């Protein structure tokens, strides 16, 4: 008797749980349960004065320099479009540690029906977001002439889904004092005429014989996007790649001979003890390491924070990525995109997008952040040979974006795993396993 009752109750509990599950996909059908708020019928939202409201969501905190630059441009937009009765509203959601916070926020807004009309997003997510119909196709809304003015575009399957806010690039910061002492002259290696893999190794060898660790390749930074962002150009330079052009196949690309050659180059640097996993994060700044692979964000740090060790730009410089078969360098940016939200009329959103990507906005924002403008027609008068000049030229000549694939986050994971295992592991084994993992992930999400 007791058992009977107990089992009946248990069955009921299980049934309750199953119901939870039913509700999950049941809820999908009427996902607008609580959505569509704001009282708009779907075409656009307006305020009491008849202004069309366009919402734009940024991934930075409002009080940061970057956030304030965005806010200023939004204010200017509102002044300029007063007569046309368009009003932009900025929402700031600082991207928290791990970046999943910002994305969860986006998805929750999508679920609620409160997704902003324009969002900012990290460029490698283009494929996944476009594939999930989160982003609005703007191919025909931005003229070809206008498109050509950008260093990079957020394309997926031949269609345009976003425009970059600003660009970044990376290179090898080097300690000029150490180089002078070791008698190494690198003045010939410029963005226009980069050094080769072999010349790079030769410099490393001379630094090593001078008694310093040659280069911090950041191979220990495999917990986040750092290592993939800084190291993928080596694979492209060696003629390798990661996925097919349509982003759906990893086999034959990730594990190709050319890709292996690129990774082998990094492994050689480890084997020859030019670099290692044991280099401390601050070793370059304390003069223990000759070169340091990093992005443009390190420029202000060197200018301001380490005055005691690097008094002026006579003490440090920036070298481009070395080339092998081709030249390749890192690019990366957050971008703007119009979303596929419940507002079907995108006119106002398009006006705001054009405003935010205009030369004036581009210049104002990059003046605040110190990054490279997304547009070629924003002229920055950098002195030839200066670190900023090298980054900009390098971007123009050899900038190559990270692989476009719907499973991008898994690409990052596999890349990190390869770099992590490079010290002891066999390159082709590592790449085969990376290829399998990435292919599985692509297959799992491509039809979703």
């Amino acid at each position, binding site marked *: 008797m007791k058992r009977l009752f107990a089992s009946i*109750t248990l069955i009921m509990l299980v049934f309750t749980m199953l119901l939870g599950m039913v509700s999950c996909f049941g809820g999908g059908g009427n996902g607008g*349960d*609580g*959505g569509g708020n704001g009282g708009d019928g779907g075409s656009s939202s307006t305020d009491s004065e008849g202004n069309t409201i366009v919402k734009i969501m940024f991934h930075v*905190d*409002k*009080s*940061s*320099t*970057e956030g304030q630059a965005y806010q200023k441009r939004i204010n200017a937009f509102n002044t300029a479009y007063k007569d046309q009765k368009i009003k932009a509203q900025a*929402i*700031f*959601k*600082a991207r*928290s*540690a791990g970046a999943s*916070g910002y994305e*969860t*926020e986006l998805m*929750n807004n999508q*679920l*609620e029906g409160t997704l902003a009309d324009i969002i900012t997003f990290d460029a490698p997510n283009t494929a996944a977001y476009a594939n999930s119909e989160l982003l609005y196709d703007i191919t025909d809304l931005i003229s070809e002439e206008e498109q050509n003015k950008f260093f990079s575009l957020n394309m997926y399957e031949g269609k345009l889904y976003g425009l970059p806010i600003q660009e970044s690039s990376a290179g090898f910061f080097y300690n000029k004092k150490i180089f002078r002492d070791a008698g190494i002259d690198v003045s010939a290696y410029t963005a226009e005429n980069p050094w080769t893999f072999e010349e790079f190794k030769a410099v490393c060898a001379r630094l090593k014989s001078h008694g310093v660790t040659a280069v911090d390749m950041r191979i220990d930074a495999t917990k986040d996007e750092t290592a993939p962002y800084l190291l993928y150009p080596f694979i492209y330079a060696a003629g390798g790649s990661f996925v097919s052009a349509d982003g759906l196949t990893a086999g034959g690309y990730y594990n190709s001979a050319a890709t292996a050659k690129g990774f082998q180059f990094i492994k050689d640097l480890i084997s020859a003890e030019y670099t290692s996993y044991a280099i*401390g*994060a*601050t070793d370059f*700044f*304390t003069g223990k390491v000759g070169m340091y692979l990093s992005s443009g964000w390190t420029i*202000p*740090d060197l200018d*301001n*924070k*380490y*005055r*005691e*060790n690097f008094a002026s730009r006579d003490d440090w410089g920036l070298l481009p990525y070395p080339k092998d078969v081709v030249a390749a360098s890192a690019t990366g940016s957050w971008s703007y995109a119009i979303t596929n939200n419940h507002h079907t009329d995108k006119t106002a959103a398009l006006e705001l997008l054009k405003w935010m990507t205009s030369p004036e906005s581009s210049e104002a924002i990059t003046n605040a*952040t110190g990054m490279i403008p997304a547009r070629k027609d924003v002229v920055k008068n950098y002195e030839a040979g200066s670190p900023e000049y090298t980054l900009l030229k390098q971007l123009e000549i050899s900038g190559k974006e990270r692989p476009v694939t719907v499973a991008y986050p898994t690409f990052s994971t596999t890349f990190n795993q390869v770099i992590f295992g490079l010290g002891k592991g066999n390159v082709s084994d590592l790449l085969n396993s990376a290829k399998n993992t990435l292919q599985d992930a692509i297959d799992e999400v491509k039809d979703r």
Partner: protein
Amino acid sequence: MDKFTQDLPNFRPNKAPVRKNVKEIVYYVVGIILSLIFILPILYMLATSTKGEVAYAESVGTLNMFLPDLAHLGIAFENYKNVLLGYDIWKYALNSFLYAGIVIVINILVNGLAGYVMAKLVFPGKRLLSFLIIFLIVVPVETSIIPLYSIVKIMLGLKQQMSVLGVILPASISIFNIFLFTQFFQNIPKEYEEAARIDGANTLGVFFKVIMPLSKPILATVAVFCFIGVWNDYLWPSMILPSASDGTWPLLPIQTALTTIQSIEGITTGEIMASLVITSIPIFVTYVAAQKYIVQGFGTSGLKM
């Protein structure tokens, strides 16, 4: 008794004090070494908060990591001044104190009542609830934050200013605290309640007038852990609360301000550590002040799972 014999060592046999002192010294030496191992992160935090970027970079990986830069006390002062004056940190701290205060009150009332019922009253369906309590302590909750968001925002419609409730209400229920209360109340002898009942108190009266005053240790325990929980919570409030807008008081708690400070361009490691030191102080003060009660709170209950 200990004190008495310490004051009068001559009354003890000759050899004993020496042996006792040696034991004492060994005890303290071992204790200090062990303590150092456990407070290494605090030493590191405090030491780093006194350093400039170069001094910090040079100390990493050496024992200097744990020693303050006493030669440049001006830098330490600068670090703390920048953090305290540069950002409205006190506004966010006040929010956190406010949220924590409300959560503590509701948490104790709601879970205390439930714990009391589970411990002292007899009613049909009790065994199912006891089972549910254990079940809910066991399930992993990593993915439940996604549906929780939908429940708070869509089902209950807690938006804008109301979203403060979305921070307070979920934090106010804790199955684990119900469990702790139940365990504690079970050990309070029946006689106390019966005496009050003879005086004509009802169940609720017994709970407030008899049980609560006897339960200071468990109240302190729950309050401290509620406070630590709310003070350290970061991801959930940053998802649920609207971000600050000009001219209005921010709704966000202290941890979100902390991450914002950490992501500001040009901030030095010393300043970050100074901000961490400042935000750790309330937690330490609470813990040290309440630790006597925490031990009793777990103690008298003789926890049974």
